[in-house]
């Protein structure tokens, strides 16, 4: 049926030949491939994909193993994509291959390096066995990634270590070939009491189509703190399916912010599993898109232990023919009493042809809980606009101001000042104004 599926299935046979047959990961890959072969790409008939179609991706002839020609990507070309005003650790991939000269990794008390070395070196074997593919959902797309997973970021922060500077994970695609498919796989383990901030970005450097099927697993141990930012500002020919799975041990705090401004089709699967008491989870997002862009946020917070909190706040501004989807689920198990879960999704439709489909869900099996969700679809307040215009603020600026204010609650919770400024600029650019001040 699906061209891309057939291609992937046959490519796997070739890919398998190059692998070491006795590694434990090998069986995992075979199993994962079997799952993908059975299920294929999800269709709109599946409830979770009701509003997002992958048909256009399936029809495109993506190259599965990008040619690894050593065309130099100069630092000056890509510098603007880094958070350059502060010092950071960097893990940079170009067409899925690690670029050592653009990166800045470390093994000094913390591990900020590559998944490929972690998979192959015996030193890391215990970590891989404990964590790799342990919380990733066994659905078809994640399985596809597992089968082909070769490269990605490997970050391991040991106990009681506070990482002094943020870590950037950047995936570039050069567009040397017409269309490429990338499948990065990241593994992040934050040890007991450790503290880390991570920024992830996907960026294509040409107009050629790229399809990224990325999977990230994050493990936060006892009292760990992990702050994860996803900046999605790719160009309009790029599609991204990002699946992020977070497992939290007791008293840990995990925050994931997703800023979706670019790309043709973006799907974010963000799943949190709280496995200990007094966990705190934050899932925030700002989506501002136009043209025919499509952004789908699919979130799940699974509360399996008592006394936990979760907080979701997604804002969306949709212009032109763009489509936004929010599908959030809060699941509270029977034993997870005293949960405080909040879920909010606010949307603004700017143009008549824009569409928003929102489905905030609660599934609650415990009685002593405080769970609520709210969802709104509306417009900018005409009275507020009038107020500003009557005081000499042009319509465009007034609208922009209101949109800023709308997204501000999410922006405010960004803990890296430089990143906040960067996103501020991105929003200003997106709305098409430059305000003479910073919010």
């Amino acid at each position, binding site marked *: 049926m699906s061209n891309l599926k057939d291609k992937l299935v046959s490519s796997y046979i070739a890919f398998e030949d190059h692998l070491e047959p006795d590694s434990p990961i090998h069986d995992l890959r075979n199993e994962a491939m079997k799952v993908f072969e059975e299920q294929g790409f999800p269709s709109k008939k599946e*409830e979770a994909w009701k509003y997002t179609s992958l048909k256009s991706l399936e029809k495109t002839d993506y190259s599965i193993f990008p040619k690894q020609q050593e065309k130099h990507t100069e630092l000056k070309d890509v510098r603007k994509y880094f958070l350059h005003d502060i010092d950071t650790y960097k893990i940079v991939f170009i067409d899925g291959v690690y670029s050592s000269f653009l990166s800045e990794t470390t093994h000094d008390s913390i591990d900020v390096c590559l998944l490929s070395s972690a998979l192959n070196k015996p030193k890391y074997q215990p970590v891989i066995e404990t964590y790799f593919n342990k919380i990733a959902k066994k659905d078809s797309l994640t399985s596809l990634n597992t089968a082909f997973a070769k490269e990605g970021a490997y970050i391991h922060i040991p106990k009681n270590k506070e990482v002094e500077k943020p870590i950037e994970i950047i995936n570039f695609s050069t567009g040397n070939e017409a269309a490429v498919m990338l499948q990065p796989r990241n593994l992040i383990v934050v040890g007991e009491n450790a503290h880390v901030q991570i920024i992830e970005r996907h960026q294509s450097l040409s107009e050629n189509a790229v399809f990224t099927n990325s999977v990230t697993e994050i493990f936060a141990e006892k009292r760990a703190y992990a702050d994860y930012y996803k900046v999605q500002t790719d160009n309009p020919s790029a599609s991204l399916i990002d699946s992020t799975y977070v497992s939290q041990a007791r008293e840990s705090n995990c925050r994931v912010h997703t800023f979706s401004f670019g790309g043709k089709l973006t799907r974010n699967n963000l799943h949190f599993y709280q496995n200990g008491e007094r966990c705190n989870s934050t899932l925030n997002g700002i989506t501002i898109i136009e043209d025919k862009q499509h952004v789908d946020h699919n979130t799940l917070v699974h509360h399996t232990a008592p006394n936990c909190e979760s907080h979701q706040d997604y804002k969306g501004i949709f212009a032109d023919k763009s489509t936004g989807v929010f599908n959030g689920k809060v699941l509270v198990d*029977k034993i997870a*009493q005293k949960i405080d879960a909040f879920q909010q999704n606010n*949307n603004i*439709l*700017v*143009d*008549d*042809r*824009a*569409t*928003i*489909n*929102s*489905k*905030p*869900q*609660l*599934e*609650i*099996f*415990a*009685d*002593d*809980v*405080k*769970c*609520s*969700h*709210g*969802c*709104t*679809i*509306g*417009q900018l307040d005409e009275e507020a606009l009038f107020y500003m215009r009557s005081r000499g603020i042009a319509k465009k600026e007034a609208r922009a101001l209101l949109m800023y204010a709308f997204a501000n609650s999410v922006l405010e919770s960004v803990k890296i000042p430089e990143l906040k400024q960067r996103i501020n600029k991105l929003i200003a650019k997106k709305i098409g104004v430059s305000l003479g001040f910073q919010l």
Partner: protein
Amino acid sequence: MAKFTEDDLKKELETKEYEYGFYTDIESDTFPVGLNEDIVRAISKKKEEPEWMTEWRLESFRYWKEMIEPEWANVHYKKPDFQNISYYSAPNKKPKYDSIDEVDPELLETFNKLGISLDEQKKLAGVAVDIVMDSVSVTTTFKDTLAKKGIIFCSISEAIKEHPELVKKYIGSVVPQKDNFYAALNSAVFSDGSFCYIPKGVRCPMELSTYFRINQAGTGQFERTLVVADEDSYVSYLEGCTAPMRDENQLHAAVVELVALDGAEIKYSTVQNWFPGSKDGKGGVFNFVTKRGLCEKNAKISWTQVETGSAVTWKYPSCILKGDNSIGEFYSIAVTNNFQQADTGTKMIHLGKNTKSTIISKGISAGKSQNSYRGLVQINSRADNARNFSQCDSLLMGNECGAHTFPYIEAKNKTAQVEHEATTSKIGEDQIFYCNQRGIDTEKAIALIVNGFSKEVLNKLPMEFAVEAQKLLEISLEGSVG
């Protein structure tokens, strides 16, 4: 006084038996089990229906054969064997009664046990009751009063014979034959139901009401209701259900169609109290109902429902807001206890300009029950200035039940304003403490809080019905509230 604890309440609830579980021994004319074209023809023949109706039924049956049972709802049950159901059952003594004295005394006794004595209702409430007992209308009261205004209120089979032009025009216009599995089944085999037509500009002077009962063991109940309100008319329609106790699961697949023409208003209230199954989850009614209303220009449809019964409920009273300035409302209380499962909610489809809809849904789950709200609010691209407000609150009692919310919100128009809010909580200890402190014991305090929780919806019911609804809430939750 000994403290009435939550455990006591729970115990009391568990032992609370279904009060309306009795079986009236009236000889019934029942068809053999199974379903095929011959049975469909036989039903139609039995009802002395014209040729077009028989054809319509057969067409529906052919659609149904092609369809598969839906599985998407958040309920789990053993699927009924559709070939093991008798599709027609009617009380045997057929002649129609002119006055209430002629009605089988045994039947009257049944109603008395339900506390809905016809005489009393006639006098006190001014309600015309079209009683459907195992599918055939037994008596229709107040028909004369209504006839003077030009209002037609009769059983659907009578309407097919006497007002074929109206039935032909509107039946299947809101819920098409192939709308869904159960609607198709109903269209093929519906046994009886009510038909109501309010002429132009007429305000129906009384609440119209129908009581459905499932009586014969192993018979499915397939009701078909059609309410047509012509331009600028008004009608308030009540539907109430109680069913006797049975061990087998009984199937109830009804279809209700409302048509509100320009400027008309229909208020449709339901109290549903089918047998919910025993406290260990045995028996109970399967309630798979399709209810939908169509609003033309400036029309208004208001659904109010109190759902306390059925083992499995699958029901989404919906409004299609086709005309400009039309209004749809949905007020619901769904109570589940023991092993009951309910998946209920509404659909508001905004097509016309300046359309408004309000959804207030209150779910109360106790025991080991599962209660889901599933709703759709759809704003289409031409529905300028559409407005929706939804509120879904769930109350959980005990830690073995579940409350779920699945709202779907789809907006394609930039002028749309949609708000959705949902909360899930239990009765706050501080609230109970507050009441206790002021000399209100725990049981009363809980009753008070639940009453307050559902007030918004209860208030929407007509007076006579509100009393019964409150009684039902008590029966379903008395003691369990904790």
